[in-house]
């Protein structure tokens, strides 16, 4: 026999007893016996679908049965089963419907459009109005921003802001499905907004054509309920995180690399933030970007849609948000894993004694010197692709080395060049004559600059870097060489 303790307010449904002795081999059987004996109690503990109400926790002695074997947890003689409500609360983090100026109703067109939402009790009219009142900011209209923009627009999120200052190019189309071939050369903001309005004309879109920075981030983010991070670089990721923590906005995070992705919700209702997970950025250059390492085109679709799902759940206030859990996705193994994330009490931005109380210089924080982008970087002794072509045509005695990887060489190459991947260069120095004039090139000029530095260190004197790499070669010398 097990003893079930009845909380005060429920005793009226249990013959005014404060405890009931029942038999059963498992907790489930004991509860079934209890509600069979006291049928009015059933409606208090279970919902119409026959599931325990969300606020009802069942304890066996002092353990929550969710962490034992749930309903199947075995019960011994003399065990005590307690019914304990879960209680929490606090001031709202998100704009409450009443404060958000809800439109009183949906139009006839909108009712039709959202009918598959409206017939689900978890969404219903109330939920759809919450979506309509919601204001979500997408940071980036690229790989992650594309599925996010499409589905959040379709779902009826009333106001969607997009921060992006980039232009659509051909290399985007493999994954950024919000843009089409005819959009190449257009601003991503315009291309994305047109597509979203085409999907759903009942929503409003704010275009923020800026690079998010410490100067403008708080001002842009403050008007939104939820921020969705679809950025591809560390300085912006820390910037978005810190701004969200400072403003008390949830940060729906996603990141992708090659075949793997991550997603979680940061800074929501006391949960951990990005800095709790990664207090320090990796050294610059250690983690390659998608432009350097590549990305499976479908991957941002999967991760972006997980972000979109979490965003909609936060707005509706349903389900278990992905808070305190880092979801890891491996497309090759087709496996999801989950890591538990804890809030770090020492966290410099969301901990108990924060030291970061305003936005900082994130470029500097991530160890990135303020220099122009790779393609325009000028290194000492740079040589223009046009001049390299002239040297080849003049039959000048010089060696052109291509320090890219073999698979890049296959995409397109300069026939005159010799392939020595950067990683192999140190042990293949003997193949090169230290007195010869050497020009190195790669895709855009970054890796070949490293090669030049390495050769100079090894005693090579006449070494130069071909400015802008094979991309510039394609632009200025031979357009038949494909860009990638």
């Amino acid at each position, binding site marked *: 026999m097990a003893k079930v*303790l009845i*909380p*005060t*307010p*429920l005793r009226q449904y249990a013959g005014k007893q*404060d405890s009931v002795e029942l038999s059963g081999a498992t907790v489930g059987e004991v509860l079934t016996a209890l509600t069979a004996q006291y049928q009015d109690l059933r*409606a*208090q503990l279970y*919902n119409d679908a026959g599931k325990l*109400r*969300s*606020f*009802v*926790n069942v*304890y066996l002695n*002092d353990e*929550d049965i969710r962490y034992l074997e749930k309903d199947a947890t075995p019960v011994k003689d003399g065990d005590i089963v*307690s019914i*304990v*409500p*879960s*209680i*929490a*609360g*606090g*001031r*709202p*983090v*998100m704009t*409450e*419907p009443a404060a958000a100026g809800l439109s009183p109703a949906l139009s006839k067109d909108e009712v039709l459009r959202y009918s598959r939402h409206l017939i689900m009790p978890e969404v219903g009219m*109330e939920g759809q109005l919450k979506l309509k009142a919601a204001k979500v900011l997408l940071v980036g209209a690229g790989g992650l921003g594309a599925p996010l923009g499409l589905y959040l627009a379709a779902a009826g999120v009333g106001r969607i802001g997009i921060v992006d200052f980039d232009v659509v190019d051909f290399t985007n189309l493999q994954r950024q499905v919000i843009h089409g071939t005819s959009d190449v050369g257009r601003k991503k903001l315009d291309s994305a907004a047109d597509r979203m309005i085409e999907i759903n004309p009942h929503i409003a879109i704010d275009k923020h054509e800026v690079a998010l920075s410490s100067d403008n981030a708080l001002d842009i983010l403050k008007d939104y309920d939820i921020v969705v991070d679809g950025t591809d670089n560390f300085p912006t990721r820390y910037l978005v995180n810190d701004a969200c923590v400072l403003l*008390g906005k949830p940060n729906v995070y996603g990141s992708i690399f090659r075949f793997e992705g991550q997603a979680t919700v940061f800074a929501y*209702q*006391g*949960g951990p933030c990005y800095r709790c997970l990664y207090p320090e950025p990796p050294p610059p250059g250690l983690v390659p970007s998608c432009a350097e390492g590549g990305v499976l085109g479908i991957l941002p679709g999967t991760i972006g849609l997980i972000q979109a799902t979490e965003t909609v759940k936060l707005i509706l*206030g349903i389900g278990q948000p992905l808070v305190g859990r880092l979801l890891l996705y491996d497309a090759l193994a087709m496996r999801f894993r989950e890591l538990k994330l*804890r*809030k770090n009490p020492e966290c410099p931005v*969301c901990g108990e004694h924060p030291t970061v109380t305003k936005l900082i210089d994130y470029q500097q924080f991530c160890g990135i010197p303020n220099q122009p982008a790779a393609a325009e970087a000028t290194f000492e002794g740079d040589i223009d692709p046009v001049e390299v072509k002239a040297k080849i045509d003049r039959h000048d005695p010089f060696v052109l080395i291509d320090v890219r990887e073999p698979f890049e060489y296959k995409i397109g190459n300069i026939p005159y060049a010799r392939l020595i991947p950067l990683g192999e260069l140190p042990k293949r120095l003997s193949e090169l004559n230290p007195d010869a004039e050497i020009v190195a090139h790669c895709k855009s000029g970054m890796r070949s600059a490293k090669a030049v530095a390495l050769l100079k260190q090894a005693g090579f004197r006449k070494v130069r870097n071909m400015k802008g790499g094979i991309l510039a070669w394609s632009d200025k010398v031979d357009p038949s060489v494909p860009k990638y």
Partner: protein
Amino acid sequence: MIRIQPDAWREMVAHALATYPHECCGAMLGSVDDARKTVRIALPLENASEGERERHYELRPADLLRADKEARDRNLDLVGIYHSHPDCDAYFSVTDLKNSCPWYSFVVLSIRKGAFDHANSWLPDAEQTKAEREELTY
């Protein structure tokens, strides 16, 4: 309606002021006579939220079990839960509602700039969709 006796009320306000600017939370023990509740003892409990306690509170189920036992031992009932809203009105927020249960009265104390401002008591429904205001005297 719910009536909080002076000693219990002083305890609750003192607790809310002591934890300011964090939210406090605790249990209210007393008796129920039809729909009239009388709170005789306030039992301060720890805010177990791991997050921003300025805007969030969480009751440990073990503490709630202890409060229930305490009530049984004193021949009283656990009749409600109280918590504070620092620098915020004493309304029942969506967060409060979504983490509530319909079995108890929920008293919210508004503390502004470190001083007691006002309080309300709420009765949430079982579906966690709305909360009714309950007449409160103290």
